């Protein structure tokens, strides 16, 4: 069930959501079996920013009904650390998977910046690395000037995508935020700005309160708010992916609460070309391989 996506040939339509599978840590935890049974047809890195980030103070997790809230805060080594330390390791894992399975999963590097200039620099500096097949742009980041999430406003999103898209020759996927009035307008804006594809949904902004015994009532999460994910958001994802797929011509990557082949099939039937598995990787890291197998049957 091979799939063509933005010029990339993928063995099947299942990939991972950014930040839900650390291939480098998984290589250590699971040894060679990770390579032999690598579950994703393309691998999406966690979000890289220009400067290193430590992430939010703990607590960072909350378990909700059929889902979870994370307030991780995008910890990463920064662009330089990514290129120097992580990219060679990811490329090596990719090559090992290629040896074992016949095809290396393309690496999609997810980047985030607080301005068009920052994003352009990230794309430019990564563009020459052959190990990177495509970029995913996380636009759930407050604009350094307006304070508004870059992806929340169609006009702002179009300007940013238009400004940064010439910075790379590789496919540029814009990961839309669901925390906006009309996600299909944002998808249209990304397309008009020059995006090669869109992916959605990101997590829904959410919070949880510390136990009632703590007065005054404050957020349990060290970061104050976080993002809700898991089966709790699948119905929202289905509606948003359907709306976006109807609106744009560029390919759509659908995600949000996918646990099974039937969940993935739903997203594909409303127009997704690829489906990403996110939170369910936490519960079973090999689930994506099973979904891919079952989709083929």
């Amino acid at each position: 069930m091979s799939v063509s996506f933005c010029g990339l040939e993928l063995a099947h339509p299942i990939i991972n959501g950014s930040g839900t599978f650390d291939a480098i840590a998984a290589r250590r935890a699971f040894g060679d079996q990770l390579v032999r049974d690598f579950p994703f047809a393309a691998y999406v890195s966690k979000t890289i920013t220009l400067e290193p980030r430590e992430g939010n103070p703990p607590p960072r997790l909350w378990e909700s009904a059929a889902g979870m809230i994370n307030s991780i805060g995008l910890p990463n080594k920064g662009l330089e650390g990514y290129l120097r330390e992580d990219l060679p390791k990811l490329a090596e894992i990719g090559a090992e998977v290629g040896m074992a399975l016949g095809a290396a999963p393309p690496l999609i590097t997810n980047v985030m910046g607080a301005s068009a200039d920052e994003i352009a620099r990230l794309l430019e500096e990564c563009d020459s690395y052959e190990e990177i097949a495509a970029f995913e742009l996380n636009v759930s980041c407050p604009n350094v000037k307006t304070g508004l999430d870059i992806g929340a406003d169609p006009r702002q999103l179009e300007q940013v995508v238009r400004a940064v898209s010439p910075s790379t020759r590789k496919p540029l996927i814009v990961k839309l935020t669901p925390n906006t009035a009309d996600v299909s307008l944002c998808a249209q804006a990304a397309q008009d700005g020059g995006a090669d594809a869109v992916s959605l949904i990101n997590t829904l902004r959410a919070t949880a309160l510390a136990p009632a015994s703590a007065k005054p009532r404050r957020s349990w999460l060290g970061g104050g708010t976080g993002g809700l994910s898991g089966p709790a958001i699948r119905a929202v994802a289905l509606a948003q992916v359907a709306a976006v797929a109807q609106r744009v011509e560029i390919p759509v990557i659908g995600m949000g609460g996918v646990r099974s082949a039937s969940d993935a099939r739903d997203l594909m039937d409303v127009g997704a070309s690829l489906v990403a598995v996110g939170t369910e990787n936490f519960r079973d890291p090999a689930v994506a391989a099973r979904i891919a197998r079952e989709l083929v049957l």
Partner: protein
Amino acid sequence: MSTAPFARRLAKVVGIDRLGAYRVLRVADEGPRAEPGQFAMLAAVEGWGGGSEQRPFLPRAFSIARHRDDETHFLLEDVGPGTRRLCELGNGDGLWVMGPLGRGFREPGEGRRALLVGGGVGIAPLAILQDTLGAENTTVLLGFRDAPRTEGAVLLADAQVASDDGSVGYHGLVTELLLEELERDAHALVYACGPAGMLEGVRAICAERQVPAQLALEAGMACGFGACFGCVVPRRGGGYLRVCVDGPVIDGEELDHVDAHAGAPA
């Protein structure tokens, strides 16, 4: 370090034994044997999601308490929807297991004696550690809140027991027993696991006396294999450590303090 098979696997519960306030969950699991201090992520196959507020959703992290014959043992205490559901399991029930995960305890070097300090349900990884080191090579100090919990002490051989309420053994904190032991002979390596307050006490006592300490930390985590970055603790000198892949056993000197914040899914 033992690596885990890449997937959760179906195992069968072969027994659940009441041990005072705790349960020993005995599982027939064909996975690799854990090294002392490693852990596994557990979830019941049935009824995982039907509890209070429709939880639990995520699997829960437990130290491997012991391998005995073909069984793997876990020590449970009912403190939330996940642990409650696991405590309800019976013979023949299905259990999802993923592991062994994480970095376990390292052997004592330099002729140091092994001093095992445990608190509450945190005594679990010290049992498999004692199995590995041999009871004759260990000194064991265990602290519990009250009498029903002190029954957990039978998991280890020759334990000195402290209880907060004085109902069994020494009336006071296990860290007070640790101080006495170190006064007598400080050429030791301390292995500790227990609640955050106890671990912080152990860390501070050992740091002051330059006694090496390996602390098995507990944290709520979504995945157990380094993906979610949810289980972090602050590292000395800045940044964070992931309890799941940098630990759960972390040298005391890598931490400024142990705080209770890492908690969450119970």
